[in-house]
């Protein structure tokens, strides 16, 4: 393989990884933008989403097969279910804590995270579960570089979801209300906006996107595990911070940058791929030293 091929191949890998990070980072950033909560349970929502997708695929495959039709239907239903789970968690765990000190709600988020992954751990006996899909390995060849149709579909689906989100946030009244409550909640109340339902809507959208990423990750990697949310939670948080937490385009950009850094990190001369995370986080630290608000962000995260 030539250097150019390697670059192209890593670009593709980085884009896929980055899509997952971006989808999860969006929920992180949106929730931080409106209630200043670092929702550490968000990675576990992604994990739960993946398992819900797995169960639904199991139920649907007798009718729809193990191909894209089943995946699409399972994904849409699981996005709705997991979106509702996000709203439920917000209602029972976060709403009662909104007027408590910020540290308390952060600890609550950690507790929610533990509840979710311990629940899934006990249900699955901590084992890897195979994702019941069968998509084959066909794809397109560009010289020495091979891209599967699965990769192409996953990246395009992410792009589609982000386009829909962009339209929703910028063009619909509810989307505008979401942006407005991150600016001034009391002013929103005076406009007749029910702030609590808009916050719930934000949790719904963020959780549904994380769920989509979880299902896609299951499809892509082929097996899932109760602990898969932990690392991606950290990575997505990092991505949100790189892009500027609270900023929606920032979350997308940060996720893609992190994904690309990681995949190019595997090609680092002399040190090998096990250092890719060190490389990616090293870049993050450097970025935050010089631009503490992230690439597109306006607000700095408060030090806890």
């Amino acid at each position, binding site marked *: 393989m030539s250097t150019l091929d390697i670059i192209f191949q890593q670009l593709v890998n980085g884009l896929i990884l980055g899509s997952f990070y971006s989808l999860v980072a969006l929920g992180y950033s949106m929730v931080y933008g409106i209630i200043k909560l670092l929702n550490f349970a968000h990675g576990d929502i992604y994990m739960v989403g993946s398992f819900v997708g797995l169960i639904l695929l199991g139920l649907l495959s007798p009718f729809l097969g193990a191909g894209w039709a089943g995946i699409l239907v399972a994904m849409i239903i699981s996005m709705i279910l997991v979106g509702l789970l996000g709203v439920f968690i917000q209602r029972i765990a976060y709403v009662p804590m909104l007027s408590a000190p910020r540290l308390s709600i952060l600890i609550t988020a950690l507790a929610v995270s533990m509840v979710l992954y311990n629940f899934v751990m006990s249900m699955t006996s901590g084992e890897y579960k195979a994702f019941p899909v069968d998509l084959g390995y066909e794809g397109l060849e560009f010289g020495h570089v091979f891209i599967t149709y699965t990769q192409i579909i996953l990246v395009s689906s992410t792009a589609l979801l982000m386009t829909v989100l962009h339209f929703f946030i910028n063009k619909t009244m509810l989307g*505008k209300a979401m*942006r407005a409550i991150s600016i001034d909640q009391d002013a929103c109340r005076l*406009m007749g906006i029910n702030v609590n339902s808009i916050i719930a809507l934000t949790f719904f959208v963020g959780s549904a996107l994380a769920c989509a990423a979880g299902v896609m990750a299951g499809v892509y990697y082929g097996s899932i595990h109760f602990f898969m949310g932990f690392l991606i939670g950290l990575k997505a948080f990092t991505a949100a911070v790189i892009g500027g937490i609270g900023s929606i385009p920032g979350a997308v950009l940060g996720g893609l940058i992190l994904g690309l850094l990681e995949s190019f990190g595997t090609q680092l001369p002399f040190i090998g791929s096990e250092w890719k995370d060190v490389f990616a986080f090293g870049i993050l630290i450097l970025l935050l030293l010089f631009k503490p608000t992230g690439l597109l962000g306006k607000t700095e995260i408060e030090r806890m």
Partner: protein
Amino acid sequence: MSEVILKITDLNAHYGHIHALRGISLEVKAGQIVTLLGANGAGKSTTMKCISGLLKPTGGKIEFLGESIFGVSPHEIVKKGLIHVPEGRRIFKGMTIQENLELGSFTLKDDAERKRRMEYVYELFPVLGERRHRDSGMLSGGEQQMLAMGRALMVGQKLVLLDEPSMGLAPFLVKNIMKVVKQLNQEGITILLVEQNAKMALEVADYGYVVETGAIVMHDAAQILKSDERIINAYLGE
């Protein structure tokens, strides 16, 4: 005699242990401009926050159009036809002027009506129309006040609460804002106006209440207050 649309009786409010309102009673009649006068910290803004529901009062009665709105959520109160333009404008900086106005019409379902209202606001404040796609954070203080008022006019409200619309504005802008207040009133909107600039407020108002440390100490027709010795000494002295 026109009907009373807002009636407040013995209103009390606290911020923690601070007893900010100690039995405020007042009335606003349909079609009037009523002003609340008083020094900084007297409780004028707190009264407004209680009316619009931003702050839950601790005692008393608030009736709007004959119906109690005590303890009702602010977003529900807006739907009844009452809107509060808060102190400090509180526009959505980072969003465009047009988006700010659209949010003002959040409770409106009808798109055609929204368009009509927006044109009406742009007619009232042409400078907003010229810059409709600009970030509202770039507006000057006076323009931000116009936007805050415009945003409140995006739904046909019966009562508008204006909290210190002239704060921090140059005198010619204050005159401009007051002219609009008068115009809105002539179009049939009832107004409850808080002002530190008592002279200006009494110029436009029909009736006035004087608030001191959370209680009404005096009230009368604006014409009479204007020539009252105590008012002149306390609020109108140069």
